[in-house]
Structures are given as C-alpha cells and as structure tokens.
C-alpha cells in the first residue's frame, strides 16, 4: 500500500520535473494548442492503455491490441468500400473487435492457455486478417463528417477522441475502484485460485477483460482511421509496446493484482509530456521510442533494486 503511494508520488514528481523542464526549454510548450496536440497525437494509445490496465491487473496480458486496432479499421474501410454506409461499417468494425476479443478469451479463459501465447497468435493473426482485407492499398475517401470527427474540435478545441478518452477514464476509474467488477479483477489478478474457491466465475471475468480490451482497441482503431482520414493494413503496428509501457510505468504490476488508475493516468501524462517535450526539442520519434523502452524496463527494475536495498539494510539492522 505504502510503496504504491510512494510510486505515484514519484510519478507526480517526475511529471512536474518534465513539465517544468519542457516549459523552460521550449517557449511553445505552454499553450492550449500544444496541450491538445499532445493528447491528440497519441490519443488512441491512451484509450487502449486504460483497458490494458484492467487486463494486467487481472494478471494477464494482451499483445494483440494493436492488431485489433488495425483489424477494426480495415474491416470498416473494407465494408465501406464495398458499399456499406459508414455507420454500419463502424458497427461491423466494433463487432469484429469484439469477436477477436472473444476468440482470445475462449482460448485463455476456457481452454486455459497462457495469454502471452494466445495474444501473440492474435498479434500475428489479426494483423494478417486486416491485411488480407485491404492488402497493400490505402483506403480513404470517407465522408467529410467522419474525418472531421477525428480531426477537428467538437467542443472548443476538444476533439471527439479526447472527450471519449476523458469519459472512459472516469468510467474505468470508477469501474476499477468502486464496482464489483473491479473488485473481481483485483481478486482474480491477486490469487486466481482463491477466487475460484470463493465461487468467483473466473472464466467470465477473463472473458470480460479480453472482450473489453479488444472492443476498446477496435474503437481506438476507428478513431485512428478518422484522425488519419484513411486506412492501411499496417495501421497502429507496434503500438502494443507503448500501451504496455504506459500501464507498467503507472505502477501496475506485471504479476497482477496491483495498480490503480491514478498511477496509469499519471504515467500517461508523463509519457505524453516527455514525448511532446522531446518532439519540441527536435528529438525524433525514434529516440523517443527507445527512451520509452528504457522507461519500461526501469519501471520494473527500479522497484526491484529498491527492494533489494531495503532488504540488505534490514539485514544489517538486525
């Protein structure tokens, strides 16, 4: 408990440091427009990260999120191109996402396979399906209202995606921390056997986790398509790295059962500001990628080292 709170404090201090560094280093940083951009440029990943937090707290992992994003976008584009009205195409895309999630859930929750292997298969397989649909083409030419939803502010400068993100963040925070479902996710993540012996329908909880994760990813995929105005088979490739990093950096334990939405929110802000700051300092996306990769490792390594030191210290105290 204590160490958790300490982690969030650390994140907060880091966030303050990054914000003040950015503010002194770049005079363009503090501005409404930049803050909107900062969110908007990674908004889809942020949305997916919210649900990924649930999955990892439930002691599972979903590597297929980025491929599901791509699959949903491609299903939408393909059916639209085949003549379906766009709202219908969007519904089909979301349905495809849910199906993908249910497929993951079936193998994990009912057959009992490790989620790492199943979602790795999903990472490869769903991407394959997406590319079968659109092959090497780029499909665009969506109605203007659709592109506008992705690109322009809906209320003031706030875009639809940002508003969806904010609503989902509040919703998921309540769901995780105050609802019965959230309680069950923690229970399953902490001790799945105890959950089973307490009459918890573990398979159902896991199904909800993976279906939810895929559904949110599909939504994010559609939003991504709206923001870019066109769809390609390789859309969102590699996003899973950023999403998982965000969640782990937020203090969610890779072994499940630990973590909270405040931490995830702080880690999101930290990563977004860090990326934005580096972007404004003309550091390319590539460098940003490996800084994020380093953060991912450090977010687990540092608490480990801290624990070691603490143990040693205790040993000496004796």
């Amino acid at each position: 408990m204590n160490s958790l709170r300490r982690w969030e404090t650390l994140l907060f201090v880091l966030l303050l440091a990054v914000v003040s560094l950015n503010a002194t280093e770049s005079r363009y940083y503090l501005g409404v427009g930049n803050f909107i951009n900062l969110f908007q440029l990674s908004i889809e990943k942020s949305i997916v990260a919210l649900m990924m937090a649930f999955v990892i707290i439930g002691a599972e992992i979903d590597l297929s999120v980025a491929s599901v994003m791509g699959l949903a976008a491609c299903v939408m584009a393909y059916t639209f191109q085949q003549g379906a009205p766009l709202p219908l195409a969007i519904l089909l895309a979301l349905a495809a996402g849910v199906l993908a999630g249910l497929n993951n859930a079936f193998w994990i929750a009912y057959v009992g396979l490790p989620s790492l292997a199943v979602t790795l298969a999903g990472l490869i397989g769903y991407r394959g399906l997406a590319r079968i649909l659109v092959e090497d083409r780029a499909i665009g030419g969506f109605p203007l209202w659709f592109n506008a939803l992705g690109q322009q502010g809906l209320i003031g400068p706030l875009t639809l995606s940002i508003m969806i993100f904010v609503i989902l963040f509040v919703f998921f925070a309540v769901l995780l921390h105050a609802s019965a479902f959230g309680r069950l996710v923690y229970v399953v993540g902490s001790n799945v056997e105890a959950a089973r012996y307490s009459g918890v329908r573990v398979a159902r909880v896991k199904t909800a986790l993976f279906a939810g994760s895929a559904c949110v990813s599909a939504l994010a995929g559609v939003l991504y398509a709206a923001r870019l105005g066109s769809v390609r088979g390789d859309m969102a490739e590699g996003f899973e790295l950023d999403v998982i990093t965000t969640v782990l950096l937020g203090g969610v334990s890779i072994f499940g059962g630990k973590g909270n939405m405040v931490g995830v929110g702080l880690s999101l802000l930290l990563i977004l500001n860090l990326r934005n700051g580096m972007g404004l300092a003309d550091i390319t996306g590539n460098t940003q990628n490996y800084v994020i990769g380093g953060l991912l490792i450090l977010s687990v390594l540092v608490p480990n080292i801290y624990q070691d030191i603490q143990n040693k210290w205790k040993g000496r105290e004796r």
Partner: protein
Amino acid sequence: MARVNWLRRHVRPEQLRELSLLALIVVAVMFFGSMIEGYYSFRTFNRIASSVAIIGVVAVGQTLVVLTRNIDLSVGSIAGFTAFFVGTLIANHNGVNPLLAVAISIAIGGALGVVNGVLVAWGRVPAVVVTLGTLAIYRGVLVDLSGAKTVTTDSLPQWLVDLPRLNIAPVGDLDVRPLFVVAVVIVILFQFGMGYLSFARRFYAIGSNPEAAQLIGLPLKRVVFIAFVVSGALAGLAGFMTLARFGNITVEAGRGLELNVVAAVVVGGVNIFGGSGRVTGAMLGAIMIGTLEQSLFRLGVSEFWRDALLGLLILLAVASDAVILKRLNRIWARTELKRIDSLAERAP
C-alpha cells in the same frame, strides 16, 4: 497392447509431436504441389531452405530461452543491429577476414544478449518486459547511430555478395547453399549439445521445476543468463546471414523476425511453460513457416494469409500442448505403472 507398448518404449510423446509436425509439413508440401505447377523443383527447395536458414538459427537460441520459461522478443532488433554494424564495418574495411566478421557478429549479438540476461536473471525483471524494451532500444540506438545510412551491396566485398548463391555441393540441379548449411550445422550441434552436455541438461531442469532447481543449488540465474547470451549470439550470427543474403541493409533489417521465431519455436513443440522441447522441433517449426511463406503467394492468394494461418498454427500448437500432450503423457505414465505393477507381481 503389445503394439502400444512398443510405441511407448520407443517413442516419447514429444517425439510423436515432432513426427506429427513433420507429417503436417509433408501434407502441406503435397497440397501446394498439387495446386501449383512446377512446385516440386530445386528452386522451391532453395527458396524455402534459405528463408528457413535465418529463422532456424535464431529459433535454436530462442528454444534455450523458452526452455527456461522465458522469452526473447529482442532477437529481430539484435539481428538488425548486427547486420548493420558488421555491414558498415566490412563496407569500410573490405579486407576484413570473413571468419573475423562472423566472430564479430556473434560477439555483438552476444553482448546485446548479455544486457537482456543480466536484467532478467539478476534484475528480476520479467523477460517479456525486458525484451519488449530492448526490442525498442536496440532498434532505436541503431537508427540513431547509423546516421541515416544504408549498407549497399556495392560497398561489400565480392566474397560476401557471392556467399548466398555459392554452391557448396552441387547435386544435379540441387544447390546446397552455405546459409542453409550453417543452419543445419547449428541445429545438429545444439541438438547433440542439448542432449549430451551436462550443462545443457540444466536448461531442462530449470524450466521443468525452478523451485527444485533453486533448492538443490543449480545455478538458476547463470543458466537463464547464458540462455539469453546464446540467443543473442545466434541472433548476431543470423544478422550476419541477413547481411550475406540481402546485401542491402537498411536500419529496418530483421524487423519482425522475433514473431516468426517465437512462432517457429512454439509450433515446433517447445513448451511455452518451459522444460520440454527440442532444437529439431524448433527447426521443423521454422520449416513449416518457411514453407507457408514461400508457397502461399504462388497459389494466387494474398501473401497475408500466411500471417493469419501462422496465428492459427500457434494457437493450435499451444492448445495441443496443453490438452493433447498432457493426455498422452498420462497414457504413457499409466502403461508404465502397469508394467511396474506386473513386474512387482512376478517378483514378490
């Protein structure tokens, strides 16, 4: 009954698993052969062989890592990193001794593997986290250090450019190409090594029962560390093979290799929970993937069916390990018990 017993005594469930994969490959080849004109040709063989070579070598290292209940997702980045830097080195110093170049490749790969190994074994960071991180880091460092350059064939010495089409032992039209030979040698070496070296048996022990390994004092951390170093070193070698095969190396070389390799290992029957699986199985997995990769597009269907099928194959492989193999093991154990019982009865 007698036949079951014969089977039981001579074939282990794991070998049965490999045999069925082999059968699946034969079926796939026959299917493609019936659908595609001129499929049974040496060209097809060469094509599959050279695409299998690189995946196969890395899959051998990945097998060791997976045996210890870990995973190495950074192999693609390691291979790319090595291919690029050794490529640059050779481009700048055309006189570099070929063997030295190979040694440097292995050393670079091994060094990157050391980082993974230290973080996993001593830093106690889960392998997925470490290697997902180094996947990004190694690639990122490569792009930054490369200064936006490309290694191109024209800057490489002739021996390297000619390497992939060199024919070691011409058997009629059949070309036996060096890359494939390297892969086969590595597989044979490791197959025997894993079977006969005392140290290698510890990989199985540790993946089989890590708690017990700890209690009886097996060097758990060292073994995990070495698994990552070997995986890195072989990925480095694969980097050199990539350089030789493609000649032109951009900073993107080897991207996505890790997915193929993990797929090969899992399809090849190496248990994702560690402890069981063989190098030959991983190689068969690589051959299955290579066959799909090199054949599907000739059917006239989208090349991307390969990925969809690959996802399905992984699922089926893991599911069959979890469900069918467990049952087979139980049957095997039961017949064993019966045998002991009857022995005990005979000798009171």
